[in-house]
C-alpha cells in the first residue's frame, strides 16, 4: 500500500517536467509501521538451539509475512485464544553458549509485534523442542504454567496480573501441562500411567493434587506428550495408534474412552511427529499425523497421511495423503483448514474437503530454524 502511494504520486505528476518525462520521485519519510494488518494469523515458533528463536506471524489465509517477535534459545510459545497476546518460554545465556543463564517468559502484543513485558522465571525452565504442552495458560487466563526440568520435573506458575512467579509445583515423574477448561487447574501425564491434576488456590500460591491412576500403559503403549482437547476431555494418542480420552471435568482425572485408530488396518500405521495431533471443535474432528511401517523409534517420523477421527463414533472417518509433516494445527472455529509444519522447514496450508475427506495444498511458505509449533488465531 505504501509502495503504491509513492508510485501514484510519481505517476500523477508525469509529463509536467520539461527536461524529463516526469517529475522526480518525492523524498520519503523513514519510520516504523505501527501495527500489522488486521485479520487472523498463523503464528509459528522458529526454535534455535544456540541463539535467538522467533515467533513469525503470517496471514492465516495467504500466509503473508506480517513480521516476527524475538525469543531466546530452546524456546516454545503460547498464543492466547483471542490471538492477541503471545508468550514464549526460553533461555538466555550471558555468553550465548556459556555463562549465567536466565529462563525468561516474554509477553508479546501480537498487533504491534512488541515485547510488552517479561518475567524472569526460576532458572530451570525446560530447554526442549517446542512442544505445546510445555507452556500453557489457565482457562481463566490468570496464570501461565511453564514446564521445568532439572531434570526433575516441576511447573512454574506465573501470576499474569502481578507479573511475577506465584509458585513452583513439583511434578515428579510427570510431564506436560494440560489445563482444565475452566478455572485454574491443570493436569500432567506421569510415567506410571497416571494423570495428576493440580488445582490452584485463588492467589495461585498453593495447589492441591489429585491422581488418576491407570490411564495408560507407559511400557506397552506410551502416549505422546502432545494431546488435543475435545469436549470429552484430554485426547491422547499412543505410540501404537490408540486414542485415550481422559476427563478432568470433576477434578479427578479418569479414563473415559479409548479405541484403536489402526485395528484392522494393514500397513503398520502409527502416529508420528512432534505436535502431531489437533482437534477442531468446529468440525468435531481430531486430526492425527500417521505413517506406515511403524517401528520402535519411528514415533517422530514425518507423516505420510493425516487421519480424520470422529471421537463420538470412535472411528477414522477419513485418510488423506499428507507427506512430510511433523506438526499440525487446525484453524479455529469451523474453518476447514489445517496447517502443517514440514520436515523440510516450511509451513503448508491445507484446505479440507469434508465431503470427500480430501485435502488440497493452498499455500506454503519456507521457514527457518526449527519450526515445530504453530497456532492459528481467530
Amino acid at each position, binding site marked *: 500500500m505504501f509502495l503504491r502511494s509513492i508510485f501514484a504520486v510519481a505517476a500523477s505528476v508525469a509529463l509536467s517536467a520539461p527536461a524529463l518525462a516526469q517529475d522526480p520521485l518525492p523524498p520519503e519519510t523513514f519510520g516504523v509501521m505501527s501495527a500489522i494488518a488486521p485479520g487472523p494469523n498463523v503464528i509459528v515458533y522458529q526454535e534455535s538451539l544456540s541463539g535467538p528463536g522467533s515467533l513469525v506471524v503470517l496471514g492465516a489465509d495467504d500466509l503473508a509475512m506480517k513480521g516476527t517477535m524475538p525469543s531466546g534459545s530452546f524456546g516454545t510459545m503460547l498464543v492466547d485464544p483471542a490471538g492477541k497476546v503471545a508468550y514464549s518460554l526460553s533461555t538466555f545465556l550471558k555468553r550465548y553458549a556459556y555463562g549465567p543463564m536466565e529462563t525468561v517468559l516474554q509477553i508479546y502484543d501480537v498487533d504491534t509485534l512488541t515485547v510488552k513485558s517479561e518475567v524472569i522465571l526460576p532458572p530451570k525452565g525446560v530447554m526442549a523442542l517446542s512442544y505445546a504442552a510445555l507452556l500453557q495458560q489457565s482457562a481463566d487466563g490468570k496464570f501461565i504454567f511453564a514446564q521445568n526440568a532439572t531434570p526433575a520435573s516441576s511447573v512454574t506458575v506465573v501470576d499474569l496480573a502481578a507479573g511475577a512467579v506465584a509458585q513452583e509445583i513439583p511434578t515428579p515423574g510427570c510431564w506436560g501441562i494440560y489445563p482444565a477448561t475452566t478455572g485454574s487447574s491443570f493436569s500432567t*501425564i506421569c510415567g506410571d500411567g497416571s494423570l495428576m491434576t493440580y488445582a490452584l488456590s485463588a492467589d495461585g500460591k498453593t495447589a492441591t493434587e489429585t491422581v488418576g491412576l491407570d490411564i495408560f500403559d507407559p511400557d506397552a503403549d506410551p502416549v505422546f506428550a502432545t494431546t488435543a482437547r475435545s469436549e470429552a476431555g484430554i485426547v491422547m494418542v499412543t505410540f501404537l495408534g490408540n486414542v485415550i480420552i481422559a476427563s478432568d471435568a470433576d477434578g479427578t482425572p479418569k479414563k473415559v474412552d479409548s479405541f484403536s485408530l489402526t485395528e484392522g488396518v494393514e500397513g503398520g500405521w502409527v502416529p508420528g511427529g512432534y505436535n502431531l495431533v489437533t482437534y477442531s471443535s468446529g468440525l468435531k474432528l481430531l486430526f492425527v499425523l500417521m505413517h506406515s511401517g511403524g517401528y520402535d523409534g519411528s514415533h*517422530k517420523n514425518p507423516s505420510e497421511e493425516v487421519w480424520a477421527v470422529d471421537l463420538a463414533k470412535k472411528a477414522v472417518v477419513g485418510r488423506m495423503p499428507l507427506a512430510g509433516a511433523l506438526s499440525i494445527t487446525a484453524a479455529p472455529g469451523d474453518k476447514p483448514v489445517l496447517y502443517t509444519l514440514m*520436515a523440510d522447514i516450511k509451513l503448508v496450508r491445507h484446505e479440507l474437503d469434508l465431503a470427500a475427506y480430501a485435502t488440497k495444498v493452498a499455500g506454503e511458505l519456507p521457514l527457518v530454524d526449527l519450526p515445530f509449533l504453530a497456532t492459528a488465531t481467530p
Partner: protein
Amino acid sequence: MTGFFDTMLARLDRLTETGARRVAQTSGRRSFLAKAGTLILGGALAPMLPFDKSHATGTGGGVATGSDPLQCDYWRYCSLDGTLCTQCGGSLSMCPPGSEASTVSWVGTCRNPDDTRDYLISYNDCCGKTFCGNATFCNFNEGEKPGYRMALHNDINWCMANTSVGYHCTVAVLVGLAE
C-alpha cells in the same frame, strides 16, 4: 567423570528412575514391532529431519545398525538426537576439548550388530560451546519416550544441569550390557 550414571540416576525423580531402569532394560525394537501390528521392515522411510539444512547428510529415521561412528546410523546412536561429537573434535565417549561434560544424560538400549548383544548407552551432551553446526545432526529414537520417562527422553537439552547450559554435541557412552 566416573559414576556419572549413578549421579544421573540419583538426581532423577523416583518415578522416573524406576521407569527408566525398567524400560531401558526391557524395551527393544523387536517387542515394539510385534505390537505395532503388521510389520513392514526396511521400508522406504528415510525422512529428512528438521534440522540444519546446511548439512543434507544430517538425516535420521530408520534403524541404527552401522559400524561407522562418524555416521548417523552407527549402532550406538539408536536413540541419539543431536550433533555428533565424533565430528566435532570429540570421540564416541569423550567430549571435545574445552567443552563441559553433561552431569546428566538420557539412555538407550542398542544392539551391537557385531555380537548381537543389547547394550545400555548413555547419551551425554557436551556443553558450554556454540552449537556444533559443523557436525551432522542425527536423530534416532529407539526406545525414546516423552518427558514423563525423562531418562529416555531426547528432545531436551541434557546440558540442563550444567554450569553452562549451551548445547554443543552428543556422545554415546557404552555403559554395559542391557541384559
